[in-house]
């Protein structure tokens, strides 16, 4: 009995961490280029609604994820225009994108009444049914929806791109010393636009996966439940490094899965205290890890081409 619960928990941990990992990989690039994309919470929320709605109307998950990516591109352009071209404060811009997203998803969801009681089909598993019966690894790994595998794959890709390619080097350089990068003949503005759009697409797709890989429902009014901010914390805890951030995301995913499992069991702890768990763990992890991380040098500062 306990064995099964633990297996179930491990399985759910990976499933819950998949959207966090995807979102975090985008955010790493944005923050490495010196821009905090605080709007990922709101963009994720928009992606969640977009994923459910498109997969309901188009009856195709591939189309749904593609629509999420397009939505992320558009929102990313808005964020990039404001924070890079207009040099607005990144915290404010992000928070207002979140407020905008909460309002917009509420408005759109109130129009889409047909969707209220319909459940979108969730993602299937990557590996065939027969492999799910292998003890231990079967249920934990092979029964995962294919998005989990994609998330882990993306983390490795992100690590490779960031450290082994020219573009990754440029991104890291921009975050640490934009003036030097500009002197070397690279367009700082263009790079920042690219990373911001990348992070927004990642957040939007992560939102789509959040609903399509687990429940298949959208709940109006903040169904992302602060996951965007948990991702921001995970990136800091992981020290802006894709691999370490992936493990941080898995830790937060595991906490989330654990509190959901514990709620269903008859425990003496009230459910509300279990629901607090992911947020408390996030703050604690941030507090422990924040001093050990090496912050990109121009983290959060606006780049002004004329001032050098």
């Amino acid at each position, binding site marked *: 009995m306990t064995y099964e619960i633990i297996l179930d928990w491990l399985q759910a941990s990976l499933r819950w961490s998949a959207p966090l990992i995807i979102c975090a990989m985008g955010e790493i690039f944005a923050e490495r280029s010196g821009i905090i994309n605080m709007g990922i919470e709101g963009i994720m929320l928009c992606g969640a609604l977009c994923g459910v709605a498109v997969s309901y109307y188009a009856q195709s998950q591939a189309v749904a994820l593609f629509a999420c990516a397009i939505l992320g591109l558009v929102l990313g352009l808005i964020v990039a225009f404001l924070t890079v071209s207009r040099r607005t404060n990144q915290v404010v811009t992000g928070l207002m*994108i979140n407020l905008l997203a909460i309002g917009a998803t509420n408005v759109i969801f109130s129009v889409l009444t047909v969707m209220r009681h319909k459940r979108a089909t969730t993602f299937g598993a990557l590996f065939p049914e027969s492999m799910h019966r292998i003890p231990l690894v079967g249920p934990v790994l092979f029964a995962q929806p294919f998005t989990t595998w994609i998330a882990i794959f993306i983390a490795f890709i992100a690590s490779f791109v960031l450290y082994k390619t020219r573009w990754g080097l440029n991104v890291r350089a921009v975050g640490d010393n934009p003036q030097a990068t500009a002197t070397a003949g690279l367009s700082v503005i263009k790079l920042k636009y690219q990373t911001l759009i990348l992070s927004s697409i990642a957040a939007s797709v992560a939102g789509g996966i959040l609903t399509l890989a687990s429940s298949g429902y959208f709940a109006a009014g903040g169904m992302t439940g602060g996951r965007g901010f948990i991702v921001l914390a995970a990136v800091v805890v992981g020290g802006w490094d894709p691999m370490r951030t992936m493990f941080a995301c898995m830790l937060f995913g595991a906490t989330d899965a654990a509190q959901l499992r514990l709620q269903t069991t008859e425990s003496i702890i009230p459910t*509300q205290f279990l629901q607090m768990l992911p947020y408390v763990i996030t703050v604690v992890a941030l507090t422990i890890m924040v001093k050990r991380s090496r912050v990109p040098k121009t983290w959060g500062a606006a780049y002004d081409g004329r001032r050098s």
Partner: protein
Amino acid sequence: MRTKEKIIKVPFIGDLIYSSGHTIVGILLGIFTGGLLIAISGVNPFLAYASMFRGAFNSLQSFSNVLVRSSPLLLGGIGVAIGIKSGVWNTGIEGYMYIGAIGATIVAIPELGLPPIIHILLCFIVAMLFAGLWGAIPGYLRAYKGVNEVTATIMLSYVAIYFTNWIVSGSPLAQEGAYFPMSLPFAKSSLLSILMKGTSLHPGPFIGLLMCIIFHIILKYTPFGFRTRMLGHNPFAAQYAGINSKKQIVITMVIGAMLGGLGGAIEVLGLKHRLYMEFVTGVGYESVAVALVAGGEPIGVMLSALFFSILKVGGATMSIETGVSSSMASIIIALCVLFVIGVGVADSKRLKKRDEKDPGKKTLSFKMEEAVK
């Protein structure tokens, strides 16, 4: 260019007109874009805005609603504004309001046999104490551990929300067998009195306005206010001047939290008369919006809080009369802020060019650049 120079030379008012110019342009752009969105959703935007206006100003009752709804925005707005002045983002107002309301609830439920004024003051003090302690956590983490305060405050807001949910559904303070999770009713002596018959107008908004004036004076004329502003303008200079910046950060965050807690207490004592789940949802983000449109100035908070509360109250009427969802109000609020900051930076760019020509006038652009940092 010449006329602008002239405007600035008019003492006080010229400065004000010039510095609030981008705010007004931003708000107008926000309202315009909101109108476009309403038009896209198939409703005549003029009709929608007309019903919004009627919803806010139609009768004494609706205007008192505007005032009542502005009370948490006013207190939350100053809370965030003080943070902005000292260079921290105190975005956890929603959490402080819940914790403050819990504090007030604990003292408000039992019949203490006190005269109402003392009982209410006791509720306020306990609420501010609770919220202040709660705000000290992210303040300490920010100042001494270097944890980003935005993430910390928002995470703690979620903790506060779930804590409130427990208080109203599982704790000894919860009303048993209620159809909706709520706390026990408050004692009569703890409730704020209604100022006008037939409306729900309680003293809360006036407390909020008073706080705006008090904090305007504190920030402008006291050593504490000077230290706060200095820290926000230039943390390094503040350090060299011997200001204990860490302590200052904790204090400003605690004050912001106490104001938020007071706002939460007023909300439950004046309007709800019990503690409910999620009774101030969304106020956290909206307080940030209020403080930003006000440019971090407590006096500006008065105007922007009233403006946003008109949008919220009018939005509810608009939703009944035209079918546009009332969440459109929060979209318009967010759009206004995005336009205000988008336009504002361009404005400061122009001012800086002027500064480069004439270094003697290096006040406004400096202020605005630092205000948003």
